[in-house]
């Protein structure tokens, strides 16, 4: 009997290891032979730990499973149990997705390169190696792929800049410093299908003429580090990385760099300083990292999901990918549903689905069952959206026009118990704690902002000051940390003014 218990951090954090151990013990007790596979997560995180069993008619799932449920699952022969939810692919949450980047995540042992190839892995890299590097860059450009880390810069153009830049050594840096609250897609891909990232980095290396790749991974992801190290070891042993990648005349190596808990290092120039053993201070641009990046060499800095989307594009062609989406937001986006939502997890879909469809239909409203009041899209620097924004199509352009951003596509739900003044104050506090300190609007503005907004209900001068400060921070900050903190602050003030109104006592004074 083949049983799957995820090793994804989300599953582990709610007891997946204990469940796996209990399944082993129960099987031994009953004399049943169990082939236990530790897979990545299928992405239905509200059902974790989600256990799957291979049957004649496909995989059937049970969840959320606790140690106490294991004996009962064996009693029913993993059949008509209360926790049975059928096949994962048949659930609406999964059936409505278009899984390209996450096509393989959760299907098998993530560090088995053999399993990866059997599921169609390495097709993209093999195809790339039959093309010229310039043709690979053209393919990525034609796909319309844009940076999935948040900035949305066209990936092909960045690659071309690096390929054309002067330098003896070029680097591929994977930004895996996924610090935005509400996002976890990078983590899921690295833990559930790391070879897709490795393959994407190798394709990028071939395209721009880089021989060295570095994955800059946040320290808050210790499980991802373990899976990545195992995958890198397997990739080196089986010739996916090394002096002759897949036996071809192309040399490429990847190493893992563990970060040290600074949010601002998700900004690409801070990240490069950190990799060089310096304080993670933002660099002024120009020069662009594409021209002078790691150790002053031309460097591609791409997010995990950007690089993870490349193997599919090379394997299946740019046209199919570019045909998906809406307007200039092409392809699919792995959207993350988190916080106070009922059905939380990873939902990959073409751009263009509405915010309302995501939070009401797919996520099913709040986890607490109370009315949904606000959603924050795009992490701590993203705007808060209200019930009036539910028709907004999920694209870079529509969110920009609505005074927000999609960022790394994390969506966090809040019910009617949330105090939006506190959330706006926290946005400033977070900026103050994580500011690198290089520019004044961010370093000082965040501190003054937190102090000022805290008295908004008792001081009529506070909100006008905050609005003025937000203009300064937006226009005067060096990077997105100070520059985008006004998004959550101003959206909270304009969309939820009732939470900032003067209290009766003070208003009467």
């Amino acid at each position, binding site marked *: 009997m083949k049983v799957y218990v995820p090793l994804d*951090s*989300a599953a582990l954090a709610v007891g997946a290891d204990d469940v796996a151990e209990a399944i082993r013990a129960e099987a031994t007790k009953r004399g049943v032979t169990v082939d236990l596979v530790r897979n990545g997560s299928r992405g239905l995180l509200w059902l974790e730990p989600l256990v799957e069993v291979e049957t004649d008619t496909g995989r059937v799932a049970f969840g959320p499973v606790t140690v106490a449920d294991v004996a009962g699952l064996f009693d029913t022969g993993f059949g008509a149990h209360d926790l049975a939810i059928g096949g994962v692919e048949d659930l609406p949450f999964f059936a409505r997705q278009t899984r390209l980047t996450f096509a393989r995540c959760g299907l098998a042992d993530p560090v088995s390169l053999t399993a990866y190839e059997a599921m169609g892995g390495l097709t993209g890299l093999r195809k790339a190696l039959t093309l010229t590097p310039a043709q690979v860059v053209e393919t990525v450009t034609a796909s319309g792929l844009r940076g999935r880390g948040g900035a949305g810069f066209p990936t092909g153009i960045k690659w071309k800049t690096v390929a054309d830049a002067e330098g003896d050594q070029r680097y591929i840096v994977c930004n895996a410093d996924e610090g935005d*609250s509400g996002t976890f897609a990078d983590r899921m891909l690295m833990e559930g299908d790391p070879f897709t990232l490795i393959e994407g980095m190798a394709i990028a290396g071939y395209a721009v003429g880089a021989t060295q790749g570095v994955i800059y991974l946040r320290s808050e992801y210790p499980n991802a580090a373990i899976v990545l190290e195992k995958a890198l070891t397997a990739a080196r042993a089986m010739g996916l990385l090394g002096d002759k990648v897949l036996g071809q005349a192309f040399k490429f190596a990847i190493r893992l760099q*563990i970060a040290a808990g600074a949010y601002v290092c998700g900004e690409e120039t801070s990240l490069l300083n950190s990799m060089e053993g310096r304080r993670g201070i933002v660099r002024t641009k120009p020069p662009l990292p594409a021209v002078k990046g790691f150790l002053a060499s031309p460097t591609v800095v791409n997010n995990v999901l950007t690089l993870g989307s490349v193997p599919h594009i090379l394997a299946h062609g740019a046209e199919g990918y570019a045909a998906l989406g809406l307007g200039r937001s092409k392809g699919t986006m792995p959207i993350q549903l988190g916080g106070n939502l009922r059905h939380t997890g990873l939902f990959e879909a073409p751009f263009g689905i509405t915010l309302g469809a995501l939070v009401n239909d797919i996520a099913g409203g709040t986890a607490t069952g109370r009315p949904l009041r606000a959603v924050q899209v795009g992490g701590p620097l993203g705007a808060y959206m209200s019930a009036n924004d539910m028709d907004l199509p999920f694209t870079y352009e529509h969110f920009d026009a609505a005074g927000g951003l999609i960022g790394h596509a994390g969506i966090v739900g809040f*019910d009617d118990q*949330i105090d939006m003044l506190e959330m706006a104050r*926290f946005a400033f506090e977070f900026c103050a704690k994580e500011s690198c300190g290089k520019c004044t609007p961010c370093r000082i503005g965040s501190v003054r902002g937190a102090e000022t907004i805290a008295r908004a209900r008792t001081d009529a001068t506070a909100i006008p000051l905050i609005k003025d400060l937000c203009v300064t921070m937006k226009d005067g900050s060096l990077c997105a940390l100070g520059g985008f903190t006004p998004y959550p602050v101003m959206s909270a003030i304009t969309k939820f003014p009732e939470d900032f109104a003067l209290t009766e006592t003070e208003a009467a004074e």
Partner: protein
Amino acid sequence: MRGFLLATTPAPDTEPRLSAILTAIGDQQADLMNILHAVQAEFGFISEKSMRAIAKALNLTAAEVHGVVTFYHDFKTAPSGTHVLRLCRAEACKSMGADHLAAEVASALGIGFGETTADGAVTLEEVFCLGLCALAPAGDLDGKQYARLSSERVALLAGKVRA
């Protein structure tokens, strides 16, 4: 990385162990992050003495190394308690009552964030996002991550390590 440290009780700096780390990892500035992680894993924190030795080995000033150590939240310049409990205070966890949970846990331990209990058993820290936003609120104890936390569950976990 926290996941790999705190397994051992902080021990006093000894030069041979520090030298071994420096020899094993390298002497370039780009090696500094890895060196600091290794030193903290070995000693539980990064002492002034360690910083000076690292600076010498990498041909940097002590101020430069000190500047790097103090920039990053992960690096500690003093020993933590025997156990380190971190609770996520970011938005997704707040949407599921993280602030309430934080207040209850802090009150039960009798300390605030960034503080250690008088018996040296538990240090309470805040963290901003562990990527467990789908199962909020989340935290970690001695590097092991937990989600769908309640104050009862935290008390249970804290009780286990203090016992």
